[in-house]
């Protein structure tokens, strides 16, 4: 498969009156079509900034961002963006929230809306208001909304960060299933090492001040992926070592 996203020599600084923040420096990355890449790093290392630049939400930077052979000039439906908050409009029902996001020629395509709600297993909730949904359900609606727009690439910024552990695990599995079925390229930003390793076929490790890519780890978990067992632990430990010294490594059992 071809390269869908190419980042060359990306540098981003935020300036205000008093200081200059080197949010990103010397970022080079290419992402293959259909892959699922996780980006991990501590707070403030520029993960969100990187994703927002790819998504076209941030347009002042040095370097090149090429999606599908074209330079990114702004946000578009092709680049689905899932924010940390679900960002559903509280005054619209689930169905109307999705409808609002659709292109003009798809506005009346109710079956498209239903289909995508069913992908996230929320078919019966199309007439609910966001206030009637749990955090996890609302985030799934946000995913359905992005999918309904048939993005070429889906950018997720800590999408499950605010959810409890159990819901998070369910949603990770749901996301993996969607990725396999829909074959959409995904980039997921997270600060959860387990999540990064479980989801990503590659894990991009970032370090702060200035935000740089420290290394890119290929993950081999076999199929189906498992959260337990030695393969997972091995891969996870590799990422742990990027953040902690050997002696600090949390103790893990291998049975």
């Amino acid at each position, binding site marked *: 498969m071809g390269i869908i996203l190419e980042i060359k020599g990306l540098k981003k600084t935020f300036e205000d009156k008093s200081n200059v923040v080197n949010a990103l420096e010397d970022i080079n990355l290419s992402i293959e079509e259909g892959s699922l890449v996780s980006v991990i790093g501590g707070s403030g290392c520029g993960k969100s900034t990187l994703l927002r630049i790819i998504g076209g939400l941030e347009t002042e930077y040095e370097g090149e961002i090429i999606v599908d052979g074209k330079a990114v000039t702004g*946000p578009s439906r092709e680049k689905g963006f899932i*924010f940390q908050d679900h960002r559903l*409009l509280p*005054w619209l029902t689930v169905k109307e929230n999705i409808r609002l996001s659709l*292109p003009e020629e798809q506005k009346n395509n109710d079956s498209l809306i239903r289909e995508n709600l069913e992908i996230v297993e929320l078919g019966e909730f199309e007439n609910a208001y966001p206030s009637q949904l749990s955090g996890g359900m609302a985030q799934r609606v946000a995913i359905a909304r992005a999918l309904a*727009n048939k993005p070429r690439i889906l950018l997720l910024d800590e999408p499950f960060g605010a959810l409890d552990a159990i819901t998070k695990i369910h949603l990770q599995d749901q996301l993996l299933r969607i990725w396999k079925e829909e074959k959409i390229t995904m980039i997921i930003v997270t600060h959860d090492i387990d999540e990064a390793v479980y989801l990503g076929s590659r894990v991009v490790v970032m370090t702060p001040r200035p935000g740089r890519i420290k290394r890119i780890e290929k993950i081999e978990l076999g199929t189906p992926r498992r959260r337990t067992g030695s393969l997972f632990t091995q891969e996870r430990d590799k990422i742990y070592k990027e953040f902690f010294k050997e002696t600090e490594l949390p103790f893990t059992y291998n049975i």
Partner: protein
Amino acid sequence: MKNNIKQGLGHYVLYFLLPIIILIAWEWADIAGLLKSYTMPAPIAIVNTFIEYLQNGKLLTNIGVSLVRVVEGFLLALAVGFAIGIGVSIFPKFDTFTDLVIQTLRPIPPIAWIPLAILWFGIGQGSKVFIIFLGAFFPIFINTTEGVKNIDGRFFELAEVYEIPKQKLITKIVIPGALPQIMTGIRLGLGNAWVCVVAAEMIGATSGVGFMLSDGRSLSRPDIVILGMLIVGIFGKIMDDLLKALNKRLIKWQ
């Protein structure tokens, strides 16, 4: 918990207790000879005047005249205040263009316009509608602009991601997002409109509830004055209740 209190009989007893106490105290003061009928009549005198005014038709005519004025001035203020409020919110240049005039006119109490209004429009309908318009316009306008300002900026980012066209942005994000505060503006505006109609009619009019007040004073009939005041209070409350109910229906997502 809150609902339980609201539904019980106890709630209604409590709700009407204070007015009943006031009535009893008032009646008692009369019996005790503390009131002089030419400054403060007994409750029963108000009731008699009420019946008299109901029978000779003056009551309903005056209420009707005031209500029509309020509705006209208020609807005009609603249309203009809402339109300019949204316009100012989405076109920064229009905001800059209008800001100084609007903000300078705002602190002038509507009542201060009454002399000019009478000179311009006479003592008929026009001057009243003008004063009411001024009273209702500013709360509606200010709350519309504030309502738009307070919309979570992240929704506009969302609109960018999904390439939502400007017209949809206004109807689906800006207006509903500002609606709770617009409704607050509408309630304040209608309250002001009602205050303004009374003030305007007291100063120069030949009909309306405000006219009843000034007429009662010149006839030395405090019973008429008090009846007029009660009507102002009761109708003001009813209108606000209607708006509250409308608010609940419009903002059903909360």
